[in-house]
């Protein structure tokens, strides 16, 4: 069958591009030695991973969550609490945080997925805010002061490094790759097709037997899992967490923003968006933010407006050839 292999070829090509990009990125630590730049790279990859996870639920499945900071924070706190209070190594803590977040996402999804549009989004916001307030007032996890992770030595087992950032880089590259691959698999699966159908025309989809409730739940769980792992990573990377830094609403927005700017519901959108947005944020903050004059915010905000308006389908559309079309043509 000629055209089945056309689809298969396109998919194969995307995998090849992915492999090349990943390989290229893997060489970066050898080339970039400046610690500040390494930091920016790590953060960029982290946001790429987080936004990609968010994209699975938001972009593909169409459920816009602005409360994902809840899962990030849960991941961070779970692994950190297990490590600092019970001596459990972060790798296990990470898995535990991921599973816990996935379970909570499933539990929340059950009542929330019957909500549509803005009502759903606001539900995600208030749930995350509730989590934030609870952690802010919970003394056992340090309340507003948070938790400091004590440093012992550079150690893969305990996943902490002070003399070099390179292991963190490779971990987060791995995480970003994992989320990309998860998206890739889902995109080509039954879920991917059914979600696209529901987005285009829900009534027609229904008439073709499409039922999306279960797949929505699964998407929520996968998305929450990866986001939580990102949270655990972050905790180990910065060695200090508090509700403000890992569970705030601002953070939820920042997880969604790269996907929106890069191209919501696309494979490369979140990564592209992160690649542009995060260095931009960091550099404007470094060069303009110190004065406390808010100049960095003005520049950052203006750019967000400009990109959102100039390219509603996301920056990824600048690279699309006809075969890679995603957005509805105008």
């Amino acid at each position, binding site marked *: 069958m000629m055209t089945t292999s056309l689809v298969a070829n396109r998919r194969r090509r995307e995998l090849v591009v992915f492999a090349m990009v990943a390989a290229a990125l893997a060489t970066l630590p050898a080339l970039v030695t400046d610690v500040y730049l390494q930091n920016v790279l790590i953060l960029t990859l982290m946001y790429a991973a987080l936004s990609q996870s968010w994209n699975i639920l938001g972009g593909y499945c169409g459920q*816009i969550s602005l409360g994902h900071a809840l899962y990030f924070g849960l991941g961070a706190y779970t692994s950190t609490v297990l490590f600092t209070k019970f001596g459990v190594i972060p790798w296990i803590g990470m898995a535990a945080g991921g599973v816990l977040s996935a379970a909570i996402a499933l539990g929340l999804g059950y*009542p929330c997925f*019957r*909500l*549509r*549009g*803005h*009502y759903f989004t*606001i*539900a995600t*916001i*208030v*749930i995350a*805010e*509730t989590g934030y*307030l*609870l952690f*802010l*007032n919970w003394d056992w996890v340090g309340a507003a002061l948070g938790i400091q992770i004590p440093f012992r030595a550079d150690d893969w087992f305990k996943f902490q490094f002070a003399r070099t950032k390179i292991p963190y880089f490779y971990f987060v590259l791995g995480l970003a790759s994992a989320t990309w691959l998860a998206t890739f698999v889902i995109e080509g699966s039954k879920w991917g097709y059914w979600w696209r159908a529901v987005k285009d025309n829900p009534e027609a989809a229904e008439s073709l037997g499409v039922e999306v409730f279960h797949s929505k739940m699964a998407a929520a769980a996968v998305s929450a899992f990866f986001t939580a792992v990102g949270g655990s990573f972050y905790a180990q990377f910065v060695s200090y967490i508090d509700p403000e830094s890992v569970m705030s*609403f601002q953070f939820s*927005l920042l997880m969604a*923003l790269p996907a*929106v*700017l890069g191209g*919501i*519901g696309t494979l490369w959108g979140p990564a592209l968006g992160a690649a542009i947005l995060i260095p931009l944020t960091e550099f404007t903050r470094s060069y303009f933010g110190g004065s*406390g*004059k*808010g*100049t*960095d*915010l*003005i*520049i*950052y*905000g*203006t*750019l*967000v*407006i*400009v990109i*959102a*308006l100039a390219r*509603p*389908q*996301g920056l990824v559309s600048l690279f699309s050839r006809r075969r890679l079309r995603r*957005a*509805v043509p*105008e």
Partner: protein
Amino acid sequence: MLTAETIVQSLVSGLLTGLIYALIAVGLSLIFGLMDVVNFAHGEFLMIAMYATFGLVLWLAIDPILAAPLVAALLFAFGAVVYVVIVRYAMRATANRGMVQIFATFGLAIVMRGLAQLLFTPDYRSIPHSWTEGNNLSAAGIYLPMPQLVGAVISILAFIGLYFLINRTDFGRALEATREDAGAVALVGIDKNRVFTLGWGLGASLVGLAGAVMATFFYIYPDVGASFALIAYVTVALGGFGSVFGALAAGIIVGLIEATTALLFPPALKSVGIYAMYLAVVLFRPRGLFGSI
């Protein structure tokens, strides 16, 4: 100590606050009902209204309550400009329109906060004198703080005015018609863009009034909008997007719930009661109490 008096006092304060919340929320609901756009800079609109009040009081030496109509007018113009310069383009997007307007207005919020920081510094400000200050009423042992009382009265007046505007004027009819079918109104001679511009102006002026009121009893600083924005969104969603009456009812409910929660739980958690209420309501009414969209 929970006495009958404390409870009643709490509820009364909650009612007054709730009416002010309703005023903050109704502009948001109006704009959404009109054109399906959620203004993510709504909190920042409140913030600049508060700063504008502060500025007018400082430079023109007028009482903040008298400044309120001026602030409303200023915000009207601002809202209209925001529509023309930004939102109009956001609505042209054929793809992902919902996300585009969320993030375009979110970008605006960041810019506004940055500008406020730049122009006014992050210092907390407060309005030094107002005829409402210290002039507190007391009825049957219940203490009615004047600034909040005046705010609540202004809110009620605003809602009455809004009711007449929507139901008894040509503009109100044009508003309703455009809300029902923006594509078709051109056929009856209504300029959709003009209605949207005026709609944004109206929505902004309402939150402008709220800002003027709040400036009399709340600290003014660049990030002040953020906390009230969330309450506004929850209020609008609770009442049902697009429903003016819903915003009023929900505002009052939110104020009461917040006061009750503060009575029973540590004050830091007072918002949790509101959030729980929202979730409970939409579980049974996925479109809020009075929403039809």
